[in-house]
């Protein structure tokens, strides 16, 4: 029992990272119908930047993360304006190619600026809390809390603010949104700013829990899309549920079946869910 609980706790922290990545992907997909493959690499850029500021220039971690988040927002806006907007009305394959090209560019930039060696963001959070044999490391607790706070903030933003409602409206029906007087040219900029900031947060989490190295972002974006499909394309609650399900399933699979097949088992679960619910866990039929 302790073991199962521990595995679930292990999986929730990872799931939180998946959720943040998937949220960023799902709002972009919902609004623009773009599979934003470069998201993982841009997220890792945020992690690298945090490391660069905090570990190499001695800037306090909280400040470094804040700078990285703001930089991420600006970067998101630029990506929308310079990369995706020009192909907005073209055939979908154009946006697809732009996304792939952008991934290579950002990966290349990361390699150029930050090198090929793995980096680990030092946090100093090394305490371990233990309740009845189940342990929760301080850092993982922070990751879970931060992810929960961001998910809550995102939900409140989308459900309760005017801009958030406008984003949902554009996602659900673009023409009708125009008739409501929503400036549909502005919304993608806001969406990319939020999406990239969430990605940067995920990048910082990956960089402090684990490590950032070339290729990590691409691996993460694949997981992010798996979560999207699992939870239902474009669905925010779907991204939350899908991310946690994927994280916990991976941990349980690694713990009780075999760690060698961790990734495979996660995808088997995804396919199984799709066979039973083709629209995903929270998607609309």
């Amino acid at each position: 029992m302790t073991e199962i609980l521990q595995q679930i706790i292990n999986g929730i922290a990872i799931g939180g990272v998946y959720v943040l990545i998937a949220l960023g992907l799902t709002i972009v997909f919902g609004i623009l119908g773009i599979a934003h493959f470069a998201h993982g690499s841009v997220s890792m850029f945020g992690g690298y930047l945090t490391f660069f500021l905090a570990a190499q220039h001695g800037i306090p971690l909280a400040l470094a993360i804040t700078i990285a988040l703001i930089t991420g927002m600006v970067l998101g806006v630029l990506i929308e304006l310079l990369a995706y907007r020009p192909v907005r009305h073209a055939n979908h394959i154009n946006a697809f190619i732009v996304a792939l090209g952008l991934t290579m560019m950002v990966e290349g930039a990361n390699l150029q600026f930050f090198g090929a060696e793995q980096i680990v963001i030092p946090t100093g959070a090394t305490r371990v809390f233990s309740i009845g044999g189940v342990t929760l490391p301080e850092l993982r607790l922070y990751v879970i809390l931060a992810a929960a706070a961001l998910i809550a903030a995102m939900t409140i933003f989308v459900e309760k603010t005017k801009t958030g409602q406008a984003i949902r409206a554009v996602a659900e029906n673009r023409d009708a949104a125009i008739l409501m007087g929503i400036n549909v040219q502005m919304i993608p900029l806001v969406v990319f700013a939020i999406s990239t900031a969430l990605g940067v947060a995920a990048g910082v989490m990956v960089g402090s829990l684990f490590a950032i190295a070339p290729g990590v972002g691409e691996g993460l974006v694949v997981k992010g899309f798996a979560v999207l499909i699992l939870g239902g394309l474009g669905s925010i609650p779907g991204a939350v549920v899908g991310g946690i399900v994927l994280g916990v399933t991976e941990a349980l699979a690694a713990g009780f079946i075999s760690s060698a097949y961790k990734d495979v088992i996660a995808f088997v679960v995804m396919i199984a869910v799709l066979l039973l619910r083709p629209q995903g866990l929270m998607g609309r039929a």
Partner: protein
Amino acid sequence: MMGKSLLTCSVAALLLGTGSLAAQETLKIGVADALTGGAAVYGLPQANSVEMAADEINAAGGISVGDETYMLDVIVYDDKANPTEATNAVRKLIDRDGVKYILGFCCSGATGAIASFIGYEDAVMLVGNAAERSITTQGLTNLVRTRPPADYTGAAAGAFVARQGHKRVAVLGALETSFYASYVEAFEEEFAKSGGEVIAHEVFASKDRDMSPQLTKIRAMDPDALLVVGYVEPAAFAYRQSTELGMDIPRYGFTSGSEEQFLRVATTEQMEGVWDLRPTELTLQSTTDAGLAYHEHYLERFGDAPSPSSPYAYDQAWALKHAIEAAGSVDDTEAVAAALRDLKIFPEAVMQYRPVNGKMFDDNGQAYTANGAFQWQDGHWVFVEELPSDPEAYSEFLSSLN
């Protein structure tokens, strides 16, 4: 008359020309190693150390063969520890650059690919850090290796851990990589001789950074000790995450990682008490004068401390120099290969080799070093004692696999 004198003149000029060149020839040697990618932590310092050794050999007067002196010129190619890239690199060295002596080789996958065809080439291959046993069990007379196979060390580690009084040990490692698997296999065999049992074989891949699920599973089995076997990065995360799961059992490992490499991932508190059971390699606390000089020169030249395994390649270059001089030829690779097998341990060697039948390399072309038990104490690897290793017995066993 006129014609004849011209001919004489040109013959004389030709003789003179070659004569003056003969005083100082160039011998090109090649290095194929991982300069980029995940294995660069092993490969790049090896390539550096070959260049450093070559400069030292040249400064000390080069390689003397008969009346001629050869200065070494090192050509380095990046093989990214990838078999295909390594094959391309070695083909380029042999076919295009005309190289006959190839050094480096940090990693087993790439090295195995080269070993599969080097027997047909007019060349000599000197393997460094690659630990896969089968590299020296194929009867390749033109191949030698400075690093002992992983299972030679694994057996010594098994005996050591048994001596600490543990009975049930859980293994977590890169068991899909065959030389790590062979370390564990030999460990298990030796450990079982004292009634010990390995109760778990959990696996991680070289890119994995989250070993919590495997460690949680191990924790539930309540073992006496943990053995972590694999590349530094995942191993460092395994040590860190074992403390995050509140596991306070003794932790042993086989990683050969440096202090800096571990501290990038884990804090010194999280590493406290961890054992590394590995070839002694370059350990400042226990090294010879040659080792201290190597460390100092490397640090001065490259600005970084040398990795503990990098002298495997440094020693290759010096072994090659002595073998060529003993063979009396730079062109006769067969003679040079034979001379390598006949070589006694030389004073420039940085690693602490244990001779077999008085020689540095055994009949398989395999060298043996001492194995050591190192423990992380207050932020440093501390050499505690030598592991109980038996090179003569292992050499016999290795020959039996041919």
